[in-house]
């Protein structure tokens, strides 16, 4: 029964990944064609040793992407954790509506919600003029705009898994801790946090990993000033016509994600049975 699905994934998932891995080791012709000669040039360039001398450009892009992904996850935590608790504390019928209000953006196109920030942050719009009067102009395009877009787009991805755990919290544990005289922070840390840990970790991973490899949000809101891993890969498969180098970057992104997944599985103990 598993057969057809597995074969599909093998052919259209594993084989392309292996192709990407292979192509990352071949060269690029003078005009951008694939030249099937093996080389480590692409990886050398990735760590900084390009044709025009040493340049830590690509490690910087990688670190920048990781940093942005982590910041996004952190901001989603700040914004989303209270939201999850808020929804869990609402009485029955309001709870369903509040949850629906979080689900709707989740199912609405990310592209639309992202380009909308171009309008919101444009300097001649009403919001932009408020910002201008406050002295903050260059929000868009730039890194801050990208961050805002990322947090807004990924917030539902964080809240929904977290809520799944928050919903099931056994509050009697927290009450017992409070009765025993524990401070608010300790109550949270020892009675609540362990209970929501699976949902929390899931939410953080579901934000951090995709955010690191995002291409659309930096492309639309970053104005080419915020180049992340996703943009760099797109550039190689587009204008720069350097598929081998793009493949090497894709391998780097893949390695990152697999490392993240592996850490996540070790932490959650099982092989993703929670999903």
């Amino acid at each position, binding site marked *: 029964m598993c057969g057809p699905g597995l074969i599909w994934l093998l052919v259209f998932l594993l084989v392309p990944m292996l192709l990407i891995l292979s192509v990352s080791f071949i060269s690029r012709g003078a*005009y*951008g064609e694939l030249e099937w000669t093996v080389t480590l040039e692409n990886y050398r360039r990735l760590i900084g040793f390009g044709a025009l001398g040493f340049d830590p450009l690509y490690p910087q892009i990688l670190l920048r992407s990781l940093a942005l992904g982590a910041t996004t996850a952190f901001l989603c935590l700040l914004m989303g954790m209270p939201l999850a608790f808020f929804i869990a504390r609402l009485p029955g019928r309001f709870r369903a509506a509040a949850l629906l209000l979080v689900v709707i953006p989740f199912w609405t196109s990310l592209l639309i919600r992202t380009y909308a920030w171009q309008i919101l942050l444009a300097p001649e719009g009403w919001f932009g003029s408020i910002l201008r009067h406050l002295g903050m102009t260059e929000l868009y395009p730039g890194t801050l705009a990208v961050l805002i877009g990322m947090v807004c787009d990924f917030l539902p991805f964080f809240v929904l898994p977290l809520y799944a755990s928050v919903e099931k919290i056994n509050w009697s544990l927290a009450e017992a801790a409070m009765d025993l005289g524990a401070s608010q922070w300790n109550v949270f840390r020892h009675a609540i946090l362990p209970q929501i840990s699976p949902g929390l970790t899931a939410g953080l991973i579901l934000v951090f990993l995709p955010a690191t490899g995002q291409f659309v949000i930096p492309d639309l809101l970053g104005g080419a000033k915020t180049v992340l891993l996703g943009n760099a890969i797109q550039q190689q498969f587009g*204008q720069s016509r350097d598929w081998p180098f793009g493949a090497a970057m894709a391998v780097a992104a893949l390695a990152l994600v697999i490392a993240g997944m592996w850490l996540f599985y070790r932490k959650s103990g099982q092989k993703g049975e929670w999903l």
Partner: protein
Amino acid sequence: MKKYTALLACLWVCCVVASAAEQRLNLFIWSEYIDPGVVTEFEKQFNCKVVVDLYEDAESMLAKVQGGEVSLYDVAVPPDYLVPTMAKLKLLAPLRHENIPNLKNLDTKFANPPYDRNNRYSVAYQWGTVGILTKKNADAPLPESWSVLFDPKRQAKSFVLMDSMRDTLGAALKFKGYSLNSTDPKHLMEARDLVVAAKKRSRGFEGSVGAKNKVAAGQVQAAMVYSGEGARAVAEDNELVYFIPSEGSQIWVDNLVVLAKAPHRDLAEKFINFLLEGRVGARISNYSQYATPNKAAMPLIQPEDLKNPAIYPTPEILKQLEFLEDIGAKSRLYDEVWTQVKAK
């Protein structure tokens, strides 16, 4: 199990058949570059459907064609310097001149061009220049120079750069006083640093059409655009002005080509022949506000366009303009530099 495969097979066939049905032409062209009325007229006259896909810069078009779409598109519109490259990469089908009698309508300057002798692969479509479109600022007039983008002391309040490798690097080279076709790595690194510094002060990279729209909307004060976008923007709003920078700039010719594995080669050649008609050529140029290479179209061009130096540069301006050339294997250097520009 068998039911699944049958169902899947049916869906497959449906998809493929649906896309292969009618007589059609797949056109790959710059945005806002062809009058939709011309396309409709061709569809009616030849009883076919024209599918139009758009691109904003030449290298992205080349990337798509190189990446496999050579067997999917019929006609593309590369600039002059890319025609030899595409021919070398075996991406172009030679034109069968017997199917394109209207070739005789091409002005002698554009027939048998240096980048494609005897029009073996290409036919000139439109030509124009690269310049700057900006909003006139009466109290603080902007210098008619590339320093509007590249000099932090004399730059426009806000500007965008063009998302096109040879065009933008060429502008930087010109600002520094070098040739647009320089292959000296030192020159290119200077150009790279100039563009990267400008990028940090800019509001991003845009294609010519996107840049024109931003200036027209007042979102930026200046932008690098092609002459047609400049002329059209000025025509709609006379607060805007298009100029060729004093350091010199680029003149280019865009060409119609048939791709090597075009699925509808005959129809493609008929399309090119159709576009070469005087009446059609004039209609296209009056719409796009670019200059026409078609001498049969010249009598039908709007008189004010002929007098417009933005569209048809005067001899003095022509002296400052340089054509981009195919630099062969050295284009690899440009690709690397541009990758760094986009990535920094």
